[in-house]
């Protein structure tokens, strides 16, 4: 703990990087998984391709993906893109299924009623299907966010910032306090992000607790 207060500027700096490297992929991945999840909820073919693909992607070790990414997209090894792209892929792999399941779980009589009222498809998706899918989607988003926050540290192995740097440096200089500081940072960040999403979910879906 004392390490954190004595090195507050440094700690804050890696916290910022860590936050950026984990939140940006969650946001991009989340946005991309909505249309993909919608596709999977609508078409059996899309499901048959997307779900196994998501599973395979998820089993690739993150370090491998981070090392391979620059080779595949041709950027410098130290660029933050090299963490953002793989983590975005992980987020999509996690979220596609949540979004698809959530959309499929919208009761048929509700969507039928929406059609019968005269909703056009896009409006129905934005104002009926998607809001009803939110509770399950946000649950998936919480898992993806927490797992991203823990995975960002791997980026340090290829020299990128974040709490991972505290781990590698602490290990090399035999300074457990530094490692411990990174650990605390990761846990606190994960708990805060998770709590924030939980609250956000409750605010956005007051109806989900109605009638219980």
């Amino acid at each position, binding site marked *: 703990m004392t390490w954190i207060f004595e090195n507050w500027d440094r700690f804050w700096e890696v916290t910022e990087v860590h936050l950026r490297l984990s939140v940006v992929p969650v946001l991009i991945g989340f946005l991309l998984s909505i249309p993909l999840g919608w596709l999977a909820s609508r078409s059996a073919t899309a499901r048959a391709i997307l779900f196994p693909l998501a599973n395979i992607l998820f089993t690739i070790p993150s370090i491998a993906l981070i090392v391979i990414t620059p080779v595949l997209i041709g950027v410098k090894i130290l660029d933050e893109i090299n963490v953002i792209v793989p983590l975005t892929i992980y987020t999509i792999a996690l979220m596609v299924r949540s979004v698809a399941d959530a959309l499929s779980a919208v009761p048929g*009589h*509700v969507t*039928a009623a929406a059609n*019968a*009222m*005269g*909703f056009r498809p896009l409006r129905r998706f934005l104002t009926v299907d998607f809001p*009803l899918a939110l509770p399950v989607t946000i649950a998936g988003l919480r898992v993806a966010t927490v797992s991203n926050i823990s995975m960002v540290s791997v980026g340090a192995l290829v020299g990128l910032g974040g709490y991972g740097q505290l781990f590698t440096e602490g290990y090399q200089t035999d300074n457990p306090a530094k490692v411990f500081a990174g650990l605390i940072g990761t846990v606190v960040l994960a708990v805060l992000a998770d709590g924030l999403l939980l609250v956000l979910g409750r605010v956005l879906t007051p109806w989900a607790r*109605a*009638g219980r």
Partner: protein
Amino acid sequence: MIEFRAVTKRFEDGTIAVDELDLTVEAGTITVFVGPSGCGKTTSLRMVNRMIDPTSGTILVDGKDVLSVDPPTLRRGIGYVIQQAGLFPHRTVLDNVATVPLLSGWDRRKARARAAELLEIVGLDPAFGKRYPAQLSGGQQQRVGVARALAADPPVLLMDEPFSAVDPVVREGLQDELLRLQAELDKTIVFVTHDIDEALKLGERVAVFQTGGHLAQYAKPAELLSAPANDFVASFVGRDRGYRTLTFLHADVPVHPVTTAKLGQRVTVTDWTLVVDDQDRPRGWLSGVDGEIEVSERDLIAGGSLYDGSTLRGALDAALSSPSALGVMVDDNGAVVGVVKADDVIKALAKARAAGEVPK
């Protein structure tokens, strides 16, 4: 007015759900589609608002071919109510009801004001407006479903088994409410049910569908009962159809006086005596007892159904269900008027038949 002209629906798997349907639903009436499960009622209904398109044939709503209108536009002009109400769980009751006005471009305040008005029309406390559908009973949800369908004041209302998921008592209340509403609103309503009693009660005309999507008979309720077109209709309308015919007869039955006693009164009871409360409303029966007694709640024998003076069916049922075989007739306030007897009902039926009032 809704016209089906030689409408056939064959699904991709070859199922013929509706077979050459020719039928006209008159404007301002309730027409009921009734028939066993899978006979094509829902399919027929959904072809009106293009949730399903026919394989061949034409459907006209107020003279206009529905296929010439783009589905969302068409649907905003046709109310639709389904079995589970299909309410949006994530919207308040008020916003559910305001759905179609909002889709049609009304501003939010006007749409909400209209929605509040409709809650009242369908008999719901406006305070329910702030609740979510999950916080309502099944019967209340159905009322909201009806209010939502009526919100943009569409001339046509399609109702697919709207009351079948609620208990019989609530269902009866909703049916009465629909009849009351219709007397005011004068919509063109197509109502789907598989309950023949519901069909006969609500329908000004009833279309009986037969498995395979055939229209077996399209007639007024009394005619279905007295002159079923074929064995299928006869058996579907049921074995009690002679009894049901009485529902459509309003002939007079002689009303006899009855001995009454009030609770707490001291009486000698020699014959069947009807016990009433302070407002003359029936409480139960006393049969002969020895000597003088003070009438108390404990001595009462529960009574049967009450006859309100409307149909012969009500009169006969009151007589048949009464322990004294005397059917209690009450006025609008529930006060006892007198009693009716079963054989008088049978005589009234014979008289009505002789006068040609019973449809053949």
